[in-house]
């Protein structure tokens, strides 16, 4: 493999690892905040304990998120020096703002963790969650703006390889920004809801029956339903955006080759890369036109409009299908749960639903990975769509392979130790034990 391929592999590995912790880091503060607020407002110590326990686990994931985020931040320059040299002129503003948001979050997280019982008025401590939420969500917003810019670059003129006539704000608020930012945020929130519900479902399945776990599931499933629906709506918005601004990405995801009106949606199936024939797929008539333009008669641009060397890899179809399928699952599970809890005679905490919730945690994380791989691989061969190819951006340093293995080792160690520490943290001190310790008997 060449330096280019190793650079891509290392960037993929780092991002794939980082995104798990980043997603949790963006979403969980909201739930900590909600739980703490409910605890104070309804004088329910179960929720207050929930906030504490979530915060304790959260710190560990944040630590890994911070260090892997630092890695990807520097790797941008180490692996893609040509890209940073050129695009640095245009995108350094959102990168810079991202560090400010991160700074803000770091300061208040430190304060929050060490002032649990320090204020007479409990709402003062709760208020500290607000800057943490603002900081973590704002850093997601700014970094997504950078990624959106790489998909739909604007705000500059390219003259003889030099970026001139810059408009930093236009670069930040490019056409891809709204749908991307909204999708990243809502999917991070929904994933966090499922990850937290997963933990409680696991405890109940292990035979613990305390009301504490049920309250956690109820809170997370209720929020999860709203957020999963919102994510679906935003995903639809993204598809409509792609149909206009990046038709090749949508066409690759749908194996849509010929431009045509009344386009069907291809779900599943296999592709013969030589003849471009699709077999065993489910064709849903008109659905692609509706998805792309909200109009069954609207024409959808096919891949054949683009030269073959500008096609993204066609395996992105599987990633896209996987993401959407899991998205449907994440709506279905909380819906079932809420329907069951509405009818008195049904037990919404039966084994099957609990297993469904448990699976929702890893599945939602998988959907995040699939979605990002689709978004990133889907803009191949470009690093800056229409301006710079990935092959022109990579480092010329010949030691990328060694670096790759070093980082793989690092992520293996971090992943293992983090899982170990987290599971030990909660196994050695169950919610029941802590309830008793804090003399919460309800």
């Amino acid at each position, binding site marked *: 493999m060449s330096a280019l391929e190793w650079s891509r592999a290392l960037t993929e590995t780092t991002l794939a690892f980082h995104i798990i912790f980043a997603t949790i880091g963006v979403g969980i503060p909201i739930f900590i905040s909600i739980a703490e607020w409910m605890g104070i407002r309804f004088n329910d110590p179960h929720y207050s304990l929930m906030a504490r326990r979530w915060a304790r686990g959260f710190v560990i994931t944040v630590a890994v998120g*911070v260090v892997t985020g*630092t890695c990807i931040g520097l790797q941008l*320059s180490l692996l893609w*020096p040509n890209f940073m040299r050129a695009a640095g002129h245009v995108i350094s*503003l959102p*990168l810079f703002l991202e560090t400010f948001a991160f*700074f803000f979050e770091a300061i208040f997280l430190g304060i929050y963790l*060490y002032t649990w019982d320090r204020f007479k008025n409990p709402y003062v401590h709760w208020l500290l969650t607000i800057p943490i939420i603002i900081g973590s969500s704002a850093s997601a917003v700014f970094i997504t703006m950078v990624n959106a810019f790489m998909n739909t670059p604007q705000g500059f003129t390219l003259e003889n390889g030099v970026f001139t006539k810059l408009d930093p704000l236009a670069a930040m608020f490019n056409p891809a920004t709204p749908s991307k930012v909204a999708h990243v945020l809502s999917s991070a929130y929904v994933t966090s809801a499922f990850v937290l519900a997963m933990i409680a479902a696991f405890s109940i399945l292990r035979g613990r029956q305390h009301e504490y776990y049920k309250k956690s599931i109820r809170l997370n499933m209720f929020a999860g339903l709203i957020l999963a629906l919102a994510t679906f709506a935003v995903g639809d918005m993204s598809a409509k955006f792609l149909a206009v601004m990046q038709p090749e990405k949508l066409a690759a995801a749908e194996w849509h080759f010929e431009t045509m009106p009344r386009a069907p949606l291809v779900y599943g199936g296999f592709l013969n890369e030589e003849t471009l024939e699709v077999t065993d797929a489910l064709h849903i008539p008109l659905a692609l036109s509706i998805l792309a333009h909200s109009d069954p008669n609207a024409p959808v641009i096919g891949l054949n409009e683009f030269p073959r060397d500008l096609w993204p890899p066609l395996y992105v179809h599987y990633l896209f299908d996987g993401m959407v399928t899991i998205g449907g699952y994440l709506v279905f599970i909380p819906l079932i749960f809420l329907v069951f809890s509405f009818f008195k005679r049904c037990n919404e905490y039966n084994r099957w639903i609990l297993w469904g919730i448990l699976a929702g945690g890893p599945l939602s994380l998988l959907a995040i990975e699939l979605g990002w791989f689709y978004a990133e691989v889907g803009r191949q061969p470009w690093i800056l769509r229409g301006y710079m190819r990935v092959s022109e951006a990579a480092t010329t340093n010949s030691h990328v392979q060694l670096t790759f293995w070093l980082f793989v080792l690092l992520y293996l160690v971090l992943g293992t*130790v983090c899982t170990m*520490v987290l599971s030990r943290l909660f196994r050695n001190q169950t919610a029941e034990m802590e309830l008793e310790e804090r003399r919460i008997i309800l």
Partner: protein
Amino acid sequence: MSLELIGITVLWIFLYGYLIVASIDFGAGFYAYYGRVVGIESVIRPVISRYLSPVWEVTNVFFVFFFVGIVGFFPDTAYYYGTALLIPGSIALILLAIRGSFYAFANYGARDNHLYLLTYGATGLLIPASLSTVLTISEGGFLTVRENNVIFLAEELFFSSYSWAVVLLAISSVLFISSTFLTYYAAQAEDWPAVGWLRQFSLWGGIPTIISSLFIFIALRNHNLRHFENMLDIWWMFALSLITFMLAVWLIWKQRNYGMAFILVMFQFAFAFFGYGISHLPYLLYPYVTIISGVTNPAMGRALVIAFVAGLFLLIPALILLLRLFLFNLKYVKGET
């Protein structure tokens, strides 16, 4: 003031901030481990962890801020340093990653694990050594450009006396800054046994710090004469650095006013660091990148400066709040809350 000067001043101030907070952090990790080895852990560990716990994340942000800022203000540096520093940069990153996450693991998960503490202590000395190679490379002579390819001369760096002088200075100043701060912090907590040990550390730490900085002058003279002569032009900054150093050591020796002593140490490093920085100009990477050749587009530069000023309005109150709640809160320092 021109854009490139504003940019480099801002960045240099942040790098200085990182130098101080990271030194305290890195040194504290080393002392925590050393304390366990020589059997004085119960004496100095409480002081150290009370300081570190609320600030460990903030330290890291100073570093991120610097490298994002320098690529923003001077995109050319991303090209040269980025290509050249793949290996040393990655090693520093891996060490930082291990350190940052293991601190959280140890403190919020499995406290008192020997291996975690060893990792934490060891990385505290290795990271400053690996990060300081960037400063060495900036003097020139360790990179060449052949057919549009930047090539890093690792062997030159390894066998350069200047580079070893920088490493020595980095490590010894980490230990020195950290111990003077922790002496002050322990004195605030009225934890006299801890003060006794930490005071010893800072007195001993001062000696290699000052020897290695003198050694750097000599080595730099051989390596980059232009820079050395620029330094002589502002010799008074280095003289002030030496005077503040001597005053600080004198105060610590006399066991009084540790707070003042730490401020003097901050001044000592401020004079030396800014003196070094000013005499380095206009080069960011000798002889390839100057602050004028490498500066970003003026529109982006303006936007960055505005973002920076706006960001400071958020950061400064937040940082003050953090300091007031933990560092300068006597009740917290004494462990009463």
